Structures are given as C-alpha cells and as structure tokens.
C-alpha cells in the first residue's frame, strides 16, 4: 500500500517537472513567473536524490551501514564525533555555500535565464553532487584524510605535489576575484564603505566578548553583533547624506584595492579570536539567514522574470563576460553546478563526524542539491530586473560610458529598452550615486534581492536598506574568506618553501609567518589590483580564470574518484565519474585554450597583448592606457594571465596522465588495490566491543 502511494508520489513529481518545463518552453518570448523555475529545480532535485543518488549509494559505492565510520572508531569528542545527520548536513552545507553560487549565475544571466538554469540543474545532478558525494565517501573510508593526501596515496607522490600546487594557484585567483567583487560593490559608495568598514570594530568587540567577557557564548554574541550590523547600515545612510562625512567614505577602486590588500595582511596575522572567528560566526549565520530569507521572498512575492529565456549574447558578443555559450557558460557558473573547491571541504572536517555510512548520501549529495537552489535563486534575482538595468550594472565602463545618458543609449541600441531616468531613479531608490558598471554579481544581486525583499517587507521605502544589507552580507562573507584563505595560502607557501628552506616550515616562527603571509597577500593582491585598473572591469578577465581553475579542480577530484572506483574493481560503474570528468575537461581545456589563443582580443590574452604591442610599435596609445608605461603594464599583465592559464592547463593534463597510469595499474592487478582503512572484521569487532563498553559506562 505505502509502496504504491510512494510510486504515485514520484509519478506526480515527474509530471510536475514535465509541466514546469513545458510551461517554460511554451511561454518563450513572454515573461514567465520565477516560481516555474523553482518548481522545476525542486522536482529535478527530488528525482535525482531519490533515484540517481540511491543508485550511486547502493550499486556504485555499496555503502555499508555496518562498517564503523572514523567518527565511531576514533571518537574523541572533539574532531571525531558521531553526529546527527541533520546537524551534520547543516554543518556541511554552511561550509560549502558561499559567495560563488551567488556571483556566477548573475554573470551568466547575460545569456538569458534558460542556459544558466539548465546547466545548474544538469550539472549538479551529474557532476557537482556526484563529486561531493564520492569525495566525502572516499575520505570517510580513509579516516577523513584531505584531498591532497588521498591523491598522493592513490596516484603517487608527484601527482599529489602537482595537485597541491594547483590548489595554491586556485586559492590565489579565488581570493583576488572575491576581493574584486567587494571593490566593485564599494567603489564610490560611502554608504556601503562605511557599513563594511564598521564590521571590523564590531567583530573585534565581539571577539573580546567571546574571549574574555562571556567566553564561548556564541548565541549572545551573534545577536549583539547582528544588532550592531543593522545599526551600521542605519548610520551608513546618515553618513551618505552628510556631504562632509560622505566625502570621507568615498573611495576609488584603486584605494579600496590597496586598503583590502593591507587589511588582508594585518587580519591574517592577528590572533584568530579577535577578528576572524567572530566575523566568521556573524557571516555564517547571516548567510544562512539571507538564503532562507531570499527563498521565502521568492515564494512569497512570486516575481516575473524580465530577462528573455535566451538572449542574443549566446553568440559570444556579450558585455558581461566575453566568449560564446560553449564553453564559457560552463566556466562562468562553477559553484552551484559543480565546484572543485567542495572536494577540499568534503575531505575536511565532515567525513570525521559521520555517524553511519548510509548518511553520506544525504550529506554529500543532498547538501550540493541545496547549494544548486542557492544558485537558482541568484539567477532568479538577476533575471527579475529589467534587462536594460541588468546590463547597465554589469557592462564595463569601456563599453557603455560613465553617464546615464551614454549608458541608456548604448544599451537601448542592443535592443534592451532603458531610459537615463530609470537608471538615475534606480540609483536613488537604492541610495547610491550611480549603479553603472557595478559588475561582480554582488550589486546586481543586491538590487534583485532589494526588488524581491522590498516586495515582501517595507516596499519601496525599504529598498535602499535591503540593497545595503545585501552588500554588507556579501562583503562580510568575502572578507572572512579573504582572511581565512590568506592563512591557508600562508601554510601552503610555508609547506612548499619549507622543502628548500627548512626554517620556513616552522609555523611558530614569527619571521617565516610574516614572509609567507606577505607572499600570499602579494600574489592575490597583484591580480586584484590588475583587475581594478582593467579597462574591461576586471571581472570580465578574472572570473573566467577563476571558473576554469575551479572546474579543473573538480576534474582532478573526479579523476581521483575514478581511479578509486577502478581500484575497488567497480569499473563497470566508473562512467558515473568519467562522464562528468570528460565534460569538465572538454569545457575547461577549450576555455583555457581560447583564453590563451583566441584571435579576438576580448577573449584571448595573447591577442590582447599583441594588439597593444602592435599599437605600441606604431607609436599609438590605446585606451584606457594614457602613457607608454601603462601600455607596457597592460601587455605584461596579459602575459601573466596567459602563463597562469597555461599552468592550469598543464596541471590538469598531468593529472589526467597520472590518472590513466593509476587506472592501468589497477586493471593489471586482479585484486582490490584501494587503500581504505577500518574495513576488516577485527577492527569491526574491536569497535563494537568498545562502543558497547562505552554505552555501559
């Protein structure tokens, strides 16, 4: 009886999905309600979880509920703790959900809402969630070891070193591009700048509170901190309305970039409890709250999508990022569809807390499905805006000019109607001087969120508040990542340099610490500054590099998963990881190749350098450069970007080679060669006895 009811339920879900997609397909050219996208996404997630993830769990991985997990075997009450699956789901989701899924889909909205939606849904089901799930599984079967460690032990020492070098490069470009998002959002915005700067003393106050006044009282601290943040937004408005104060908090992009670089250095050598930890608490809770709020907002307001299903920019001439739908859609939306970074998280703290093997499916596959909802919501938030407004906010000044009149004229010539009055009115509504060329996702998302949330609470009067709330939320989150990421980079650099200069390896050495931190900050600071002065707005250049690197890391993680499946003698099912690996390799290698060698200077780094070199040889100066020196710097930056892109390609290709070698070796051996721990019967019995003893005591 229950079985047939369940079957009926799944048939209903499938019908709902068919209907939602049918509705979206039939209403091309007319506006559709965002709810249809939500319905389609929820149905896809339900079906994928119920059927595909079950297939992976039972048939491919053959999860064994009787096999003790590391949490059970090493239970120490601290790192290894068997944890309720829903609690752990929350922990894992909070760790994987970040700014990435909020930025990529906003940029990809230039192609229309349909390409992004389809890639997020297909990508998450067959690539992203599969990667998260299997990496979590293999790490759990290896006592929760890290990705680098596992690559080293399963694919060899050299492969491990190459992979870790790749991860360091990815971290650098990630930190640069995230910091750039903050710069783009805060430049010439006294309200935003004041609010975000205010978070530093607020966080420090909270740090002292949890360290000395009321140690460890996270809840209290967060409530006080949240109230202070709201106050900061309120005072930000007062600052922006006072000419003298507004002057003090109005910064150019260059100044902000240098400030963030300096801040990154100072913040990452301060004790963690003072700034990093309290801000992490605030940003984590704010992030979860905002995601829930946005979801409720979309369900409650049910906004119409204004963006066409497929825009004319699928041909690659779009202003937000350059390059055609293939491969650049699949690079632009990384997080939300498939994000290599998750493989670092899934081999971090989560595998050490799993209570039972059969819960890996919910935590690994399920959390990633949740993250895809975040990406879908970001896409919706961008697509509920008037397309003309969207392009005004996301196109570089080099294309649309710097005044509302110019911008409206250019964008209208693309076929998206917008008037200068609409642009100035929107800026006034959200309490900003201008909203032109605020690429980077955050401001667009903020206007979209303001649009949705003000429909739910507060109406137009609250729009400026919601806008700055969204900016604050993203900036707070990103600055925490910059701080934490710089520390991680520092450890990696110390580790790498320590091989040659042993004293560098000592994490307690003040000197080694400062040198490695300075190197880390210089590395990402270089790309950040380059992005800020870039005529194409920086995001245009750096986001594809970030996307390529993040997807390549995913390919590396999936190669590891494939190798492990072969070693487990499950090669019959290896297509589960081979298919997404192949797709990611095709996309990233094509995109990497085009970024290097594409004849269009807007896409290829080398042709861009060539264009400027030719001009220099002919004795002309090309905008935005004003001097020969600036021309030379642009050419130099192009070569740096090209080298970085080439390195990414080299890293991923060498991992393919090591992967193939490891697979051949596994095939040649008739036995299971995987290096799992804790599976044999003696260990199982010992644990059973120990846990029984513990229960009696």
């Amino acid at each position, binding site marked *: 009886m229950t079985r047939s009811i369940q079957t009926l339920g799944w048939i209903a879900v499938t019908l709902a999905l068919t209907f939602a997609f049918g509705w979206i397909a039939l209403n091309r050219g007319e506006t559709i309600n965002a709810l249809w996208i939500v319905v389609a996404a929820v149905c896809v997630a339900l079906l994928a979880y119920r059927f595909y993830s079950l297939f992976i769990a039972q048939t491919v991985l053959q999860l064994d509920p009787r096999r003790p997990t590391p949490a059970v075997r090493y239970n120490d009450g601290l790192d290894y703790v068997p944890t309720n699956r829903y609690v752990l789901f929350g922990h894992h989701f909070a760790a994987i959900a970040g700014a990435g899924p909020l930025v990529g889909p906003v940029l990809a909205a230039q192609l229309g809402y349909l390409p992004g939606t389809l890639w997020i849904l297909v990508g998450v089901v067959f690539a992203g969630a599969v990667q998260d799930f299997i990496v979590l599984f293999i790490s759990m079967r290896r006592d929760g070891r890290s990705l680098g460690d596992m690559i080293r032990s399963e694919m060899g020492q050299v492969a491990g070193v190459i992979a870790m070098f790749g991860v360091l490069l990815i971290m650098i470009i990630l930190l640069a591009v995230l910091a750039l998002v903050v710069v783009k959002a805060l430049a010439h915005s006294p309200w935003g700048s004041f609010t975000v700067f205010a978070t530093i003393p607020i966080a420090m106050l909270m740090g002292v509170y949890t360290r000395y006044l009321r140690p460890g009282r996270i*809840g209290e601290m967060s409530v006080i901190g949240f109230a202070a943040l709201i106050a900061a937004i309120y005072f930000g408005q007062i600052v922006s309305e006072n000419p003298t104060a507004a002057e003090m908090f109005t910064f150019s992009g260059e100044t902000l970039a240098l400030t963030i670089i300096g801040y990154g250095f100072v913040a990452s050598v301060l004790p*963690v409890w003072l700034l990093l930890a309290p801000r992490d608490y605030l940003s984590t809770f704010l992030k979860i709250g905002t995601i829930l709020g946005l979801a409720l907002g979309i369900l409650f307001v049910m906004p119409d999508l204004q963006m066409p299903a497929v825009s004319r920019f699928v041909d690659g001439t779009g202003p937000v990022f350059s390059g055609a739908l293939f491969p650049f859609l699949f690079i632009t939306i990384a997080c939300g569809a498939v994000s290599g970074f998750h493989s670092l*998280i899934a081999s971090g703290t989560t595998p050490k*807390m799993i209570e039972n093997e059969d819960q890996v499916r919910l935590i690994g596959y399920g959390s990633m499905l949740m993250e895809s909802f975040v990406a879908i919501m970001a896409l919706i938030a961008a697509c509920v805006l008037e397309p003309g407004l969207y392009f005004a906010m996301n196109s570089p000044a080099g294309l649309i000019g710097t005044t509302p009149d110019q911008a409206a004229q250019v964008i209208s010539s693309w076929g998206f109607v917008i008037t200068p009055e609409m642009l100035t009115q929107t800026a006034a509504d959200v309490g900003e001087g201008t909203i032109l060329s605020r690429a980077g996702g955050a401001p667009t998302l903020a206007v979209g969120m303001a649009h949705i949330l003000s429909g739910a609470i507060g109406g137009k009067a609250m729009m400026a508040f919601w806008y700055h709330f969204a900016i604050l939320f993203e900036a707070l989150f990103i600055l925490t990542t910059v701080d934490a990421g710089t520390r991680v980079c520092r450890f990696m650099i110390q580790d790498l340099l320590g091989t040659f200069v042993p004293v560098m390896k000592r994490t307690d050495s003040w000197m080694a610490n400062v040198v490695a931190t300075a190197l880390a900050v210089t590395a990402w600071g270089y790309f950040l500054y380059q992005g800020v002065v870039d005529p194409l707005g920086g995001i245009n250049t750096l986001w594809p590099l970030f996307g390529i690197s993040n997807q390549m890391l995913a390919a590396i993680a999936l190669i590891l998963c494939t190798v492990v499946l072969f070693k487990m003698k499950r090669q019959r099912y290896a297509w589960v990881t081979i298919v997404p690996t192949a797709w990611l390799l095709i996309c990233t290698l094509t995109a990497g190749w085009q970024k290097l060698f594409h004849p269009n200077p807007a896409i290829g780094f080398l042709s861009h350098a060539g264009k400027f070199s030719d001009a220099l040889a002919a004795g002309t100066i090309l905008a935005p450069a004003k001097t020969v020196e600036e021309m030379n710097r642009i050419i130099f930056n192009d070569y740096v970007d090209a080298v970085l892109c080439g390195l990414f390609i080299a890293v991923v290709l060498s991992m393919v080679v090591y992967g193939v070698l490891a697979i051949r070796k596994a095939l040649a051996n008739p036995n299971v060669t995987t290096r799992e721990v804790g599976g044999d019967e003696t260990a199982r019995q010992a644990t059973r006895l120990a846990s029984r003893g513990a229960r009696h005591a």
Partner: protein
Amino acid sequence: MHEAAMQEFRAIFSRLKQTGRLMVGVPCYDTYVAHRLANHPDEPVMTYEEFFRDRQDTRYGVKGGGMNRCC
C-alpha cells in the same frame, strides 16, 4: 499532550542550536564531557571555556590547517 508538544519543541530547538554551533566549528560540549567520563574517567576534562578555545584554534588552523569554508 501539551507537555509532549513542549518536549518535542525543546528537542527541535536543541538540535537547531547544535546545528548552528557546529556550523561555526563548535561541536556539542555535553557529548564531549560524556565521552571523556565514559572512556577516560581518570583524565582531566576541559572546562567549557577551554573546550571553546581549543575548537576555535582548531577551526582556524592556528597550528596550520586546511580550508574549512568555500568560495
């Protein structure tokens, strides 16, 4: 009936609280104490304050650590 509902509510609230704390890297202190008492009865148990600091230092890699958050 009323009592049962309250109990249910309290259980859900405590789970939510536990989730929120684990999200920022602080596992359940009561579980830790219970574990220490059951398995290492003759060893000292950290106070909540010590426990909190220890977890904070671990999460943010004071002794060198990995990335625990995503982009």
